[in-house]
């Protein structure tokens, strides 16, 4: 019998390694397409560097020196038998991955100062829990860089400004940070709920495949409009000019209070690192975003 805690830990170490070194296929495809399509010579140099960098990183080198703060999205089946072991296994995996890959120690105490040195500490790794039907466990490693996080915002709008006001908030934000969040970016937008709910929904949108569209046509239309508006700015890769400023805009919503129109805007750099695996109750592992290559 395999040790369940060890299986969860080993799986998570591989997720963190793959996330840091190999972009999900949809993100790489979108960046390569942007490179092929680009007409601006400066932008072409930037996208060429990104494509080359992706190739080098694949050998096992973190693609960006900012290997992010450690965030996981975890979906636990209500009948998954090892629920109590998950937090400890994820934390141990972070410590192990930090030393072995290596990852940059990015966990700093905001009160007394000091870097923990191993990417763990109070509330970090941060785990977003969701209980779902079934008996398996899905883990997504989502290490998030600081540069793009610094321009993520929550706006508490007056309901009277309507959806136009929502779109304007997202576009104005993009105009204010220009390329500083390492464009081309992916933007997640969460509308409604409350301040915390809006930004939580926004960040979850960054997990969606780049080529999908929201199932509700009204929401898909908002995604399309914001996407086209931001790409019309000409900000371009790294803010140095060009055709591609965003690779995708993803929107979702929750019901809102009559008096509130909260909008969360989560910004992701081009190094959109995420890696997902499913562990069954029998402890067999299936890697979703980064499949194990057949020998």
């Amino acid at each position, binding site marked *: 019998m395999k040790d369940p805690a060890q299986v969860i830990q080993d799986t998570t170490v591989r997720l963190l390694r793959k996330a840091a070194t190999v972009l999900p296929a949809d993100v790489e495809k979108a960046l390569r397409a942007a490179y092929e399509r680009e007409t601006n010579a400066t932008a072409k140099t930037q996208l060429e560097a*990104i494509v080359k960098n992706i190739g080098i*990183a694949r050998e096992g*080198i*973190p693609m960006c020196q900012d290997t992010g703060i450690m965030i996981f999205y975890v979906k636990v089946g209500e009948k998954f038998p090892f629920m109590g072991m998950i937090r400890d296994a994820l934390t141990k995996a972070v410590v192990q991955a930090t030393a072995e890959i290596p990852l*940059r*120690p990015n966990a700093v105490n905001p009160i007394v100062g000091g870097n923990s040195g191993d990417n763990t500490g109070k509330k970090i790794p941060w785990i977003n829990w969701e209980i779902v039907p079934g008996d398996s466990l899905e883990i997504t490693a989502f290490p998030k860089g600081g540069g793009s996080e610094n321009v993520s915002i929550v706006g508490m709008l007056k309901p009277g400004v309507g959806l136009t006001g929502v779109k304007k908030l997202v576009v104005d934000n993009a105009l204010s940070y220009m390329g*500083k969040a390492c464009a081309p970016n992916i933007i997640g937008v969460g509308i409604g709920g409350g301040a915390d709910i809006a930004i939580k929904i926004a960040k979850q949108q960054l997990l969606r495949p780049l080529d999908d569209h929201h199932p509700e046509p009204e929401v898909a239309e908002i995604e399309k409009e914001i996407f*086209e508006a931001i790409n019309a700015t000409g900000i371009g890769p*790294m803010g140095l*000019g060009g055709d591609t400023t965003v690779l995708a805009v993803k929107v979702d919503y929750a019901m809102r209070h009559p008096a509130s129109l909260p909008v969360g805007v989560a910004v992701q750099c081009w190094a959109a690192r995420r890696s997902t695996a499913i562990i069954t109750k029998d402890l067999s592992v299936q890697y979703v975003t980064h499949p194990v290559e057949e020998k």
Partner: protein
Amino acid sequence: MTEYHLTTPISEEDARKLKVGDIVYVSGEHVYTARDEAHQRALELFEKGERPPVDFEGSVVYHVGPVAWQKNGKWQIVSAGPTTSIRMELFEDEFLRKYKARIIIGKGGMGSKTLAALKEVGAVYCSFTGGCGALAAKGLKEVRAYEWQDLGMPEALWVITAENFGPLLVTMDSHGNSLHDEMDKKVAARKAEVYAKIGVQV
């Protein structure tokens, strides 16, 4: 868009040849990392009449907090993409005047104080593509020293031998040009067109 392959130390004359839009690849032994705290320390030492452990004149100063590790007793840069340069706007003009570095590398560009100092001293600011840590590490061949270790791995002064480190895009030159300022103007000019796409009237 001319491509240059420069070897350190870089002369004022060579630095003044570079113009916004040019591509540069750097080789040589005078490549140093410096973020907020290293800039601050270098300036403090100058005030006290003391010398830093390296000679910055003619050098390349890279805004980066690298991931590095020790293999067989030797430090190696693993991944080293640029950090946001505007934080160093507080120090860079004085640093350039006092130490005469010729190429500053980072991301996102810098402000008017730095632009004026680049003109006065004869130096340029180059952008290296943000997030391209693995590509950068290929060009940062050898760590010769790891100074000011008390500042911690990202803030320390790493002394590096570079080999064809690039592509570096000149985005601020010694002639008063800044691609970053130019972009601000270009994007502002498009604002009405952008707003029209989301139904906002200016």
